[in-house]
């Protein structure tokens, strides 16, 4: 099991910037050094691993120390003054529990776990609503005793009367079902004047487990939604608590409120606004999902939370949410002036174990160091961060059509769920993971790592597969800058403007509007784009406006999806933008941008391309210059062919420019390569690569305005063919022909009709 993990506070840095590194190391000490990552594939069939040591100020030995992650989201309100002199209390909310049988879960709590003291509205061990109260000696749990249904709304209310010692619990389902007895109340008494008061903050969806190095520890973590929580400093009658369910209440009830929180406010942010007038505002911790439907969602008043925010006044908390691991800093690296732009990693070594924390040195703003840029797809790496493909769903083996091979980091992540999930995973309650952060160790963003999805012999996916491209560039002495798409999102077209050519990675799948528009503007302003991958520019994502290093996806209404958002949760909480595939969003399909778009996927074996009609066009002569072969790429490190894994098809009806040329097309493919669902309205037979013509990768070229051009390969496996036979092969030559011409500033003439 891994004993070294780490992360950095930023992935992209320019000379003068400092990167802070946080390391968890269970060994007494470790050696830290910096390498430039050129080739990270350890397969014997691949060129030798090339990690170039770079002397750095941080080189040296450091003491190891364990650092842990406290996962689980909750809301925190610091309102000690609000509780001053309060002894009777009422807690209430509309709740939508998603794991009512999980065991004790705190919904609203002022509870100190260390002292065992406090008061809380809970999902009790029996799955029903309860109140828990303790003065540290006398502890009482009172529950309704009728388990709640998962994924149904309930009115939940509890109270304690300090004068009489009376406890009341009330659980009322929003919908009644025959045969389901889940409505009820319970009452009991405990000593009057029970001293439950404590120093814990008021928490939603957790109890207070103390503080650890600046981080609040949530315990008794609740899974599910909370809507319209209210806390009153009095023992209210059931009728009074019913009267507080809505958004308006009498002055009498308002006078007793300690807080009433409206989660429809600041959906894109982290605030929880108190609308009681007491100003007991709070914040969410570990990024629970916002912009989710509340108990009063109708579906008739619009589908976006901006249309009618009061119907989205809920937050969905998960016991495995994680935003910022919040580890202590172990060392900091200031990027020296003149440090070459590239992909780097801090290598941590101890007792034979090795770990990497990857980062990018970009050129100073406005001062490219090369005419070529490699566009580092950080957003997509974040989307796949710590994926659990191999350990969550047994059907992945049918996806792969080969045995499931797990690697040590996946074994670790399966048992250390606190490291958080990818955008492909489900939370522990079965809901889809909408957010992914890089402020935690990302164990699959490193050289030497293997993955499930990339076929053999290399078995690479994303980052490490992308080093086939960087090693190919360096083999031909092509200098290049490395820039990240996170910087592209922030800076837009200006980041690309001065490059003659931009090369993508193998799978640049996740794009914000800003990223998409910057690339589009680049290709329409004379820029040259080489898209060396498959299934790119596919999902729309959003970045958070105030919280760095976190992205959101809403896999709305179509596409090849790991999960489906509930109705009414199709719009990003971070921005209010409609989520889903770019091809559903107004002339921004990947075909519009790069001439091809996602058409099929399969992960067992790749296939070659064969010359297509466009190969004979004089406009494409430069691409195939010096290549006589009819068959292109019948070899490779990813599945033994240049076309495989995820494939893109040229299709004018989906947006491919009519003047674009299809130079080559792949196939036939294996039966494991299956046509995508977004093109299959009714499912039908004959949709697999052995029989379906649309299961293919098209290799496409087209000219763009101002003398620019785009070259697309439409295949994730393509990069694995570049290093084959020591970079001497027809795919490598073809790609080099394209690169050389694209680096030549001579404008591409636009063909005449």
């Amino acid at each position, binding site marked *: 099991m891994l004993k070294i993990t780490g992360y950095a506070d930023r992935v992209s840095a320019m000379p003068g910037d400092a990167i802070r590194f946080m390391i968890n190391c269970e060994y007494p000490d470790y050696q830290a050094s910096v390498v430039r990552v050129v080739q990270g594939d350890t397969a014997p069939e691949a060129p030798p691993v090339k990690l170039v040591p770079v002397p750095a100020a941080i080189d040296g030995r450091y003491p190891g120390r364990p650092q842990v992650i406290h996962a689980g989201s909750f809301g925190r309100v610091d309102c000690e003054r609000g509780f001053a002199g309060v002894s009777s209390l009422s807690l209430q909310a509309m709740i939508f529990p998603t794991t009512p049988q999980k065991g004790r879960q705190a919904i609203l709590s002022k509870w100190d776990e260390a002292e065992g003291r406090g008061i809380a509205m809970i999902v009790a061990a029996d799955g029903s609503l309860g109140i828990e109260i303790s003065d540290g000696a006398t502890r009482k749990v009172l529950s309704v005793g009728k388990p709640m249904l998962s994924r149904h709304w309930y009115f939940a209310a509890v109270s304690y009367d300090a004068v009489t010692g009376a406890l009341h619990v009330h659980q009322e389902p929003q919908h009644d079902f025959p045969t389901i007895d889940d409505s009820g109340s319970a009452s009991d008494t405990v000593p009057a004047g029970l001293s439950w008061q404590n120093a814990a903050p008021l928490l939603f969806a957790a109890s207070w487990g103390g503080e650890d190095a600046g981080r609040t520890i949530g315990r008794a973590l609740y899974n599910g939604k909370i809507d319209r929580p209210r806390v009153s400093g009095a023992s209210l009658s059931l009728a009074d608590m019913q009267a507080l369910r809505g958004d308006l209440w009498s002055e009498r009830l308002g006078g007793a409120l300690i807080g009433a929180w409206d989660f429809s406010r600041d959906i894109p942010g982290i605030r929880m606004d108190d609308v009681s007038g007491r100003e007991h505002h709070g914040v969410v911790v570990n990024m629970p999902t916002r912009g989710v439907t509340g108990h009063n969602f109708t579906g008739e008043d619009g589908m976006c939370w901006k249309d009618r925010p009061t119907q989205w006044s809920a937050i969905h908390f998960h016991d495995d949410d994680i935003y910022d691991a919040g580890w202590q800093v172990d060392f900091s690296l200031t990027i020296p002036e003149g440090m070459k732009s590239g992909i780097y990693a801090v290598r941590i070594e101890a007792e034979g174990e090795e770990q990497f924390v990857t980062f990018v040195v970009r050129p100073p703003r406005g001062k490219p160091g090369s005419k070529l840029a490699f566009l580092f797809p950080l957003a997509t790496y974040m989307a796949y961060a710590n994926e659990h493909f191999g350990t969550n769903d047994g059907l992945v*083996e*049918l996806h792969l059509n080969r045995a499931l091979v*797990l*690697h040590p980091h996946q074994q670790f992540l399966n048992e250390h769920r606190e490291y958080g999930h990818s955008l492909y995973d489900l939370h522990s309650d079965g809901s889809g993971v909408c957010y992914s952060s890089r402020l935690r160790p990302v164990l699959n963003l490193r050289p030497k790592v293997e993955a499930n999805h990339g076929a053999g012999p290399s078995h690479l996916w994303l980052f490490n597969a992308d080093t086939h491209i960087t090693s190919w560039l360096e083999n031909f002495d092509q200098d290049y800058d490395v820039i990240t798409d996170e910087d592209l999102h922030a800076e837009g077209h200006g980041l690309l403007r001065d490059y003659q050519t931009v090369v993508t990675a193998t799978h640049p799948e996740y794009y914000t509007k800003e990223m998409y528009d910057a690339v589009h503007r680049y290709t329409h302003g004379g820029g040259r784009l080489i898209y060396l991958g498959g299934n790119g520019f596919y999902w729309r994502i959003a970045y958070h406006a105030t919280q760095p290093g976190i992205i959101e996806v809403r896999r709305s209404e179509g596409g090849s999806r790991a999960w489906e958002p509930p109705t009414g949760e199709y719009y990003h909480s971070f921005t209010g933008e409609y989520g889903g595939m770019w091809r559903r969003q107004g002339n921004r399909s990947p075909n519009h941008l790069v001439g091809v778009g996602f058409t099929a996927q399969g992960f067992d*074996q790749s296939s070659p391309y064969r010359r297509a009609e466009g190969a004979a066009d004089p406009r494409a002569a430069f691409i195939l210059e010096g290549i006589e072969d009819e068959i292109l790429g019948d070899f490779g490190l990813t599945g033994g062919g240049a076309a495989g894994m995820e494939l893109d098809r040229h299709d004018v009806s989906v947006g491919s420019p009519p003047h674009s040329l299809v130079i080559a097309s792949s196939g036939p493919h294996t039966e494991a390569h299956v046509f995508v669902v977004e093109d299959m309205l009714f499912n039908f037979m004959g949709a697999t690569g052995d029989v379906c013509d649309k299961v293919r990768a098209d290799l496409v070229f087209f000219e763009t305005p101002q003398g620019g051009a785009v070259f697309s390969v439409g295949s994730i496996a393509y990069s694995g063919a570049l290093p084959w036979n020591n970079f001497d092969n027809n795919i490598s030559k073809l790609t080099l022909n394209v690169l050389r011409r694209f680096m030549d500033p001579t404008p591409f003439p636009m063909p005449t009709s």
Partner: protein
Amino acid sequence: MAKQDLEQLIQGRDLNELVAEFRAKTTGQHSPALQRLINRIRSEPMTGKLALLCTKPHEEWRLVQMNGRGKPMTLLGGIYHDLNDAEWAIFKLRMKRHFDIDLQD
């Protein structure tokens, strides 16, 4: 899984031929009957699924049984130095598990 299910999967093909086909080529396009058979036996849920843990990159894989989300996997006895041998070992175990058929190397 009953014997009649196996007959439905292989539809008159000689099982020995299909086994030999898999042993000769574990990955990629298979004959329709073999593909149906392995699709069926690979449909195991994550709890109880047979899989491989890579213990030396590109050199050594160990047979494991998955025990479900979040639960430690169980290391079984097999150690392999070729992925095809590991695939074959899993295939044999599943033929026993699903059809009570003993296959020999």
